[in-house]
């Protein structure tokens, strides 16, 4: 065996050692424990969150504030590949949602009793900020296992709603089911998502079954007990642009019963919006009397 062969063998062994070491270094990043991920201490949870997304060196206190999209686009670590990490993130988001619901319930309970409300219960702004960061990452996972959570988080804004719509047809029924919620915010915003599905997703809007499901749901929303949900149904019904939907729009424009008296005048919020939508479609005001 000549010197060159020895060098080749030695080099191969060396490279194998380096590779083994690199793999081991990746593996050493353990997922934080459930105790940390669900700790009562927000900073412990934040730290766990940062470690789950691979920002091991980040300060535990720090959130993702800042140019988050840049972070998401430049750091593959933020969107973990491993199932374990993805599920851990989804679980954290679900747990945080429950925590905020519990805080709200506690806040309401104390207020109802006339008891003093601790500031961190009355204004859980820090907890909300963290919840927003969880939604930011979970909504970027494009993982169907996150769909139930994201649907349950539709109240939180466009990060969740856009992510839900991106799932396409499988997302339709879960959103429709939100119309059964006792929370008027949930029903109203779910109605808005159904409209956005029609205008933002070709897959959904061109699927006859999905379109039919959404139409039925919007007609239901137009008969909701709360005016805000009925008002939210207006845009969707207008987009459907069929005889049945238009008939419902006319009914809302002419006879929706809800009104408030503002500055001495009756204000019919659903009627005015439905009328405006019909006028936009070319209906003359006289036809709406």
């Amino acid at each position, binding site marked *: 065996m000549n010197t060159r062969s020895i060098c080749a063998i*030695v*080099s191969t*062994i*060396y490279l194998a*050692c380096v590779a*083994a*070491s690199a*793999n*081991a*270094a990746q*593996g*050493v990043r353990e997922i934080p424990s459930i105790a940390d991920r669900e700790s009562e201490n927000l900073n412990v949870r934040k730290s766990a969150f940062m470690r789950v997304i691979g920002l*091991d*060196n*980040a*300060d535990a*206190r*720090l*959130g*993702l*504030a*800042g*140019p*988050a*999209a840049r972070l998401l*686009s430049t750091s593959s670590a933020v969107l973990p590949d491993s199932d374990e990490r993805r599920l851990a993130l989804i679980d954290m988001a679900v747990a945080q949602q429950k925590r905020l619901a519990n805080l*709200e319930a506690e806040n309401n309970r104390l207020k109802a009793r006339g008891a003093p409300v601790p500031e961190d219960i*009355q*204004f*859980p*702004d*820090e907890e*909300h*900020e*963290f919840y*927003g*960061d969880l939604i930011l990452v979970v909504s970027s996972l494009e993982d169907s296992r996150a769909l139930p959570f994201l649907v349950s988080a539709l109240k*939180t*804004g*466009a*990060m969740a*709603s*856009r992510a839900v719509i991106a799932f396409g047809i499988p997302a339709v029924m879960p959103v429709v089911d939100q119309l059964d919620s006792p929370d008027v915010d949930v029903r*109203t*915003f779910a109605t*808005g998502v159904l409209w*956005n599905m029609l205008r933002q997703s070709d897959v959904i809007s061109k699927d006859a079954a999905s379109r039919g499901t959404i139409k039925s749901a919007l007609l239901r929303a137009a008969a909701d007990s709360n005016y*805000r949900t009925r*008002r*939210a149904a207006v*845009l969707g019904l207008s987009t459907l642009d069929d005889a049945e939907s238009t008939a419902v729009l006319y009914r809302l424009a002419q006879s929706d019963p809800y009104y*408030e008296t*503002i*500055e001495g*005048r009756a*204000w019919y*919020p659903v009627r*005015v*919006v439905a009328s*405006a939508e019909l006028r936009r479609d070319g209906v003359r005001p006289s036809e709406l009397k």
Partner: protein
Amino acid sequence: MRTLHRFACAAAVLCGILLFPQSASAYSYNDDLWLTYSGTQINMSAATTKDPWDSWGHWYCQVWSQIGNWCDEAVVIYDRPYVETQVYDSSAQLAYSGAAVDDPSAEDESLAVLTWQRASPSDGTWNEASQHYIEYDHYYTAEWGGFLSCITFSFMAASASSVNVTGGGGSTSCDPAVTALINDYAACAANTFVPANKCTINLGPLQCADFSQTRSNNRYSAAQLGNWAANGVNWGLVNDNMIASGGSGAGLEWALLLLEVSMPIHYPNSNFATPYTLNSAYRTPRNNVAAGGVAGSYHMSGNAADIGNPSCTPLGSRQNCRLDVWQTIDDIAHIWQLTDYYEPVTLRCQDDCYHFDYRNHGGDYQ
């Protein structure tokens, strides 16, 4: 897993020592240590408490120090872009004088205190647009099988870019107020901001040019978006999302456009003044504390704005605000997807303002 890691790394170290006895191959990693500057001294401080197991460097450090002794340490300061894959800009290399503290355990970089000066002490302006890095090299030597082994690896540490460089007659181009702001952000990231735990934001490397006196949109002036009056400084960190055209379909002006079109439909008999009051936009870390903002508020990254409820009387106050108007804005914001993340009416904005948040829209400051 740690056992496997230890084994693999020890094997790699052993391989390195055995096979490349006289090489000086560098193992480098970004230690993310923020540097603090004081006068002409650079203090390498372990600003973040680090788990010694959380990265290669520390681990090697620990193992190697068990094997033998460090033969030398040297510090070289580079001026180079933040992105690690970029090439070194050696032209901006700084020389150092004074000795690094030779710490055999090499575990505590905070012991290294250096005096320094520019390598080419001519008049000029330090390149504030770049990041300053300090590379901390450790050389390990040992006798092994008759060979002298010398292996190098490096610690990297990033600093804020707003360093007043006076060595060699250089000067800074950064407005002092901006320098102070950048230093505040660096302190936030390094957990040295006072009051403690009231600013927990890490925007990465900020540059002078990130702060603007001109960024505005068709609704609000630079002074309003930069919140100059409340912040007490005539500069703002204003993200693209705040100034994007209303026709772009995203951002604050688009949200306002939608509201201005929609609200008269919802309230045909009301004459809400436009543009709506901008209660708060960019907040400096210090003003964010004063305003009671959350420690990681997106207001500090110039990515959030609080629009006043137009029904409050007097306008801009927190009085007589109608909840139905707030709810209508909330409905419009949700249905038209105007904000990435909302704040419920129960939070501090309550019913007198609506929080627009663009945390998932990227954008830049220049």
